[in-house]
C-alpha cells in the first residue's frame, strides 16, 4: 500500500494540504489571517471536520488551523514520529508461576493512535514489561492475542473461542490464565465462560481497566498486577473478574463470574458482586479469600469445556404498558429463548399474556429475572406471578439478567428439549442462583446520613 501522506484528512482540508504540498509529519510555516503558526502537521482524527488542519507547535501542544484563514503554507522539514512502547525482554525465571494472557482487544498497556485519537494496546510480553515492569516480580508471562474487538463487539463466537483456548492452555500445564477484556461486557463474558469452562484446576481471571493505560492515574497496571497475582499465586480456581475494590489504588476484588455486574459507567470500582460478597481481595503479592467455599487450585488438568451457544436468545426489559406486539415480534423473529427483565418480584403487565401463551405453545423458553438487580424472583406472592407461571414463565431466583441470557444461550446450545433446558437453567454451575442472600450481600448506602458520612470520611472510597 502506498504511504498515506495525508492521514485522516479529507475534503477541503485535504485540498489545502495538497495545494501547498504539505504532508502529515511535515514541519510547516502557516501564514493565516490570524497570524503565523509554525509546527508539525499531525494526522487528523477521522470523525473530525474537514475545515481544520492540526499541528503540534514547538511547546508540544496541538492546535487547529482554520483552513479559510490560510494565506500560504510552506513545508520546511519532515520528520515522522516513530512511536512504540519500549520493548524490553521479559525476564523469565523458573521459580515463578507461568501465566497466559489471552487478549481480546481491551487495553492494558497502550499508546495513542493519532489517526483516531484512540488507544492502541501493548500486548507482547516485552511491551507489557516495558509498561508495567512489576509484572516480572509476579510471574512469567506468555501472551496470545485471540482477537481485537471492543468489549461491546464481543459475542458468542468469541466466548466459544476463549473457552477452547482456555482448555488448550490448561491441558498445556499453565498455572493460571488472565483474559484482557474491555469492561462494558466483561461480566457477560465472565458469565458465559463460567458455564463453558467447568471445574477448572487453575484460576481464570478476566481483567480490564476503567481508565485507559495512556493516563498516569490509570487503573490498568494495578489491575494487571492484581490479576496476574490471582492467576499465578491465588488458590481460587474459578472464572473470576478482577477489578478495583475501592476507587482508591488500594486493593482489587475477585468476583465470581456469575455474580458480578458493572454498576457505574466510569468509576474504577464499577464491578460489584451482587447479592453476595466478593470471593477474595487481592493486593500486591496476596490473595485473601473472603468466602470459604471456593473451588481450590488443583494439580490435575481435569477441566470440562462446553463451548456451546445458541444465538437465538434475547432479553427484553419490561416497562409499564408494554404492547403485546413487542413480545410477539421476538417470537416472530425466531428467538428460541427469551429472558424477561421484569419489575418488582418478577412481573409484566397482563397485556403480554397472549404472547406468553403463544411462546409456551410454540416451544419458546421464557425465563424471568429482575430489574431490581438485587433479590429473588418471587412469583407466588401475587396473582400476576402465578398467572405467568401457568403460562410457562420460569423464575430464575436471584440469577442476574445478563447471566441468565448467557446461560440460556449456552443451555439452548446443548439441547432443544425445554425440559432439559429447564433442568440446566435451575441447576447452578457456580452460584448463579444462590440458596440464600446474606445480609451483607445488599449494601447500597445513601449519602447525607451522618453515620454514613462519617464512614466514608474515614474509609477510603
Amino acid at each position, binding site marked *: 500500500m502506498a504511504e498515506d501522506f495525508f492521514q485522516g484528512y479529507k475534503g477541503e482540508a485535504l485540498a489545502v494540504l495538497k495545494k501547498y504540498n504539505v504532508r502529515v509529519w511535515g514541519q510547516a510555516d502557516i501564514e493565516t489571517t490570524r497570524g503565523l503558526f509554525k509546527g508539525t502537521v499531525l494526522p487528523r482524527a477521522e470523525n473530525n471536520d474537514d475545515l481544520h488542519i492540526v499541528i503540534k507547535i514547538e511547546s508540544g501542544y496541538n492546535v487547529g488551523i482554520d483552513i479559510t484563514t490560510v494565506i500560504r503554507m510552506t513545508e520546511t522539514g519532515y520528520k515522522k514520529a516513530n512511536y512504540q512502547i519500549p520493548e524490553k525482554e521479559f525476564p523469565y525465571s523458573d521459580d515463578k508461576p507461568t501465566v497466559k494472557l489471552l487478549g481480546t482487544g481491551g487495553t492494558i498497556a497502550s499508546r*495513542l493512535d493519532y489517526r483516531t485519537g484512540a488507544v492502541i494496546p501493548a500486548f507482547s510480553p516485552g511491551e507489557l514489561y516495558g509498561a508495567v515492569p512489576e509484572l516480572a516480580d509476579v510471574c512469567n508471562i506468555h501472551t496470545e492475542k485471540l482477537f481485537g474487538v471492543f468489549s461491546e463487539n464481543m459475542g458468542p463466537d468469541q466466548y466459544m473461542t476463549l473457552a477452547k483456548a482456555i482448555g488448550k492452555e490448561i491441558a498445556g500445564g499453565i498455572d493460571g490464565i488472565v483474559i484482557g477484556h474491555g469492561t462494558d461486557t466483561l461480566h457477560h463474558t465472565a458469565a458465559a465462560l463460567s458455564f463453558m469452562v467447568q471445574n477448572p484446576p487453575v484460576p481464570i481471571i478476566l481483567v480490564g481497566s476503567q481508565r485507559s493505560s495512556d493516563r498516569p492515574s490509570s487503573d490498568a497496571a494495578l489491575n494487571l498486577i492484581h490479576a496476574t497475582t490471582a492467576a499465578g499465586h491465588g488458590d481460587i480456581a474459578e472464572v473470576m473478574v478482577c477489578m478495583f475494590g475501592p476507587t*482508591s489504588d488500594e486493593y482489587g476484588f475477585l468476583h465470581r463470574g456469575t455474580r458480578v455486574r458493572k454498576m457505574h459507567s466510569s468509576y474504577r470500582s464499577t464491578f460489584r458482586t451482587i447479592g453476595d460478597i466478593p470471593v477474595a481481595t487481592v493486593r500486591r503479592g496476596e490473595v485473601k479469600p473472603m468466602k470459604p467455599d471456593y473451588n481450590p487450585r488443583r494439580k490435575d488438568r481435569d477441566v470440562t469445556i462446553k463451548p456451546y451457544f445458541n444465538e437465538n436468545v434475547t432479553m427484553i426489559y419490561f416497562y409499564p404498558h408494554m404492547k403485546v406486539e413487542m413480545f410477539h415480534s421476538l417470537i416472530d423473529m425466531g428467538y428460541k429463548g427469551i429472558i424477561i427483565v421484569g419489575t418488582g418480584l418478577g412481573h409484566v403487565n397482563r397485556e403480554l399474556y397472549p404472547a406468553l401463551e403463544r411462546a409456551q405453545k410454540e416451544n419458546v423458553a421464557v425465563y424471568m429475572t429482575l430489574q431490581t438487580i438485587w433479590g429473588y424472583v418471587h412469583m407466588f406472592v401475587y396473582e400476576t406471578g402465578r398467572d405467568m407461571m401457568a403460562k410457562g414463565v420460569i423464575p430464575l431466583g436471584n440469577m442476574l439478567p445478563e447471566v441468565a441470557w448467557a446461560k440460556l444461550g449456552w443451555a439452548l446450545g446443548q439441547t432443544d428439549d425445554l425440559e432439559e433446558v429447564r433442568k440446566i437453567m435451575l441447576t447452578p454451575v457456580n452460584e448463579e442462583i444462590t440458596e440464600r442472600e446474606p445480609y451483607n450481600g445488599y449494601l447500597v448506602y445513601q449519602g447525607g446520613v451522618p453515620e454514613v458520612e462519617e464512614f466514608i470520611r474515614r474509609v477510603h472510597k
Partner: protein
Amino acid sequence: MTRTDALKNYEKTREEIGYASRKEATLNDYKRIGFKSGLEVHQQLKTKSKLFCRCPAGIFHGHDEYDAEVIRHMRPTLSEMGVYDGTALMEFRTRKEITYRLNNHTACTYEVDDTPPFPIDHEALEVAISIALAAKMNIVGEVHITRKQYLDGSIPTGFQRSAIISVEGELPLKNKKVRLIQLSLEEDSCREVSDIGHKRIYKTDRLGMPLIETVTYPDCLTPAELAEAAEYIRFLNRSTGLVRTGMGAAREDVNVSCEGGNRVEIKGVAHIKWIPELSHNEAFRQYALLNIRGRLQKMIADPVAWKLKTREITETDSQFHFAPVRLALDRGEKVMALNLPGCRGILSHFTQPEHVFADELSDRLKVIACIEKPNMIHSEEIGEKNFNNLFPEVAIWLSATPDDAQVIFWGPAEDIPTAIETIDERIRLALTEVPNETRKAFEDGTTMFERVLPGRDRMYPDTDSQPIPVTTEMLERLGRNLPADIATRFRQMNDWGIPADAWHYLLSKNLVGVIERIGDELGFDHREVGILVGHRFRSLEGRGRVAKGFSYERLYDLFAFLRREELLPPVARIMLPGVVSSPDPDFKQILTDLGYAPASLTEIKSGVKELARKFEEISYNCSSTASIDWVMGQLRMKAIGKLRMSEVRKEVSEILAVK
C-alpha cells in the same frame, strides 16, 4: 575541613563567581553572567463553574473540611512520540502515595477522575479568547484539549487538561519588547496539605478552576525587566475585569538561566515583588554551578570511572555514632557513609546566599528519596552546629584521599538505594551541566529543588474531548467588547513620561483615556496631569476620601474649569480633596473655601522683603534656604495656579540675595 575552612571556602567561592547582591548588582553583572529570563503567568478566571465539570469555582476549604478521601499512585505513560518524560520517571521513583481530600460542595466524581470531562466551560473559553485578543496574539482556528502530564499528584488524573488559545505576541515594555510564546486555558491543580515521606495529601477545592497561562520568551535580561513584564501581563489580564484577584489568583513561574546554564523554573511565585530577588539568585546559582563544574572537571580526570564509595554505619560502628546518627539508628533507620572522590571544597561551595552545594544533595534526598530533613551531615558544614572535626575518622574508614569529601545520610532502609542513586546522579550532573529543574521559591529569595523539569514529551491529545472551533464571528463578537488597547496605553504613558509606579493604577482604573483627553483637548501637559491623577488622586482614593458616585469624568471637568479660569494645574492639587468629596463638586466654591486669592507677580515681589523680615523674627534657623522656603510657603496660595512656583522661587531668591 574545619568550620572556619568551610566558611572561608564558601566566601572564597562566592567571590570567585563575583556574586553581587541585587542592590549592588549592575547591568554589567547581569551581562557578565548572561542573565536570561522569561515568565509563565497563571491567572485564574472569574467564572461561576470549574472548567470541565459543573462544580462551583472559587470556594475554598480548610485542610480538615473534607467528606471523603481517595488514594492514587501515578505511573508514567508514553507520549505520542513514544518516550517517557524525565519528570515522570523521577516522580515514579519517589513512589508517593497520594491522598485527595474531597468536599462534596466543591468536588464531584470528575475531580478524582472517576468521570470523563464534561464540555468545556464556555464562559472561561470566551474570557481566555478575550484576553488573547487584548494581547493581540494569533488566535488558533480550533482549540485542542491536550493532556499535560503532572506526576507529582497535584492533579488526580495525572495530567492537566490544557489548550492553546493563541500563539505569538509581544509586550511593549518601557525600553524593549518581550515576545509572547503562547496563551493557554487550563484547569488549576490541587492545593497541597502536606508532603511527608512517601505520603502526600492534597485538597481538591481549587482543582479544575479555569486559569490562563501566558508564556513569554526568555527575553528579559535583568530582574527589573522581568518584574516589569510580570506587571504588564498582570495588568493585561486584569484590564478585562474577568479574572480573579486576591491571594493565589495570579501566580508566576519564572524561567531563569545564565550563560552556559540551563532553563530552571521557579514555581508558583505568589508576588511580583519577589521575582527580581529570586531570578537574581537563581542566575548566580547557575553561575556558581558552572564554577563547580570547572573545579570538578579539574579534580576528576575520568568522569565515567568516577565512583562514590558507600559503607553502612551499623550498631557496632559506635565510633561514628554522632548525635544525628545515633538518633537515626534509634529510629530503626539505615545510616550510610559516602566518600565522594575529588569533591573537597565542593560541598561548601557557594550556591545561593547562605546556601552551599551540599544543600543540593540534601534537597534531592528529601524530594526524590522522600527522606525528611535533616537527612545528612557532611565534612564541610558551615553552620554553627557541625561534626566536621569528626569526619577525618570517617575519611580514614572510607579510605578517602585528601581530595575527597564525605557525607553521612540516613533514612528508611527501603529508601537507601534511591538515595544513593540520587546523590550519585547529582554529582555526575555537576560534572556536566546545570540540571534542568523546577525549584520552589522562598520569601528570602532563595530556592530549593522541586523536581526535574518536564519536557515536551509530556503532552498528549485528550481523547475524552473534541476540538472546539474558534470562528471568525466569535472573534468579532468578543473583539467588540474589548477594553482599550493596552499596548497603546502603555506606549502613551511611556511617551508622556508618566512615572512607571503610576501605570498599573491608571490602567486598571481605565484613567489613561481621561488623561489623554485632558491633554489633547484642553492642552495640558499629559505628564503633569498623569502624576496628579496617578499619585495624588490615587492616594485620596486609597484613603477612602473619594465620595460614592464620583465619576472620573469630574477630573476632566476640573481641568476644563482650570482652562476656563486660566489656572495652572498645580492648583488642582490643592483642590482635589474638595473635588473628590462630592459626586457633583462646585469648583468655584472649593477655591473660595480654600481662601484662594491669586496675586500678580509684581504684587508678590513687592511683599517678599517684608516676609523675610518676619521670618527672621520668628525663626532660629537663619539660613537663606530656610528663609526662602518659608517665604514660598507664605506666597503659595497667592501664586499657585497663576504662576509657576519655580519661577516665583527664582524671583524670591534673587530678591533675598540682593538683600
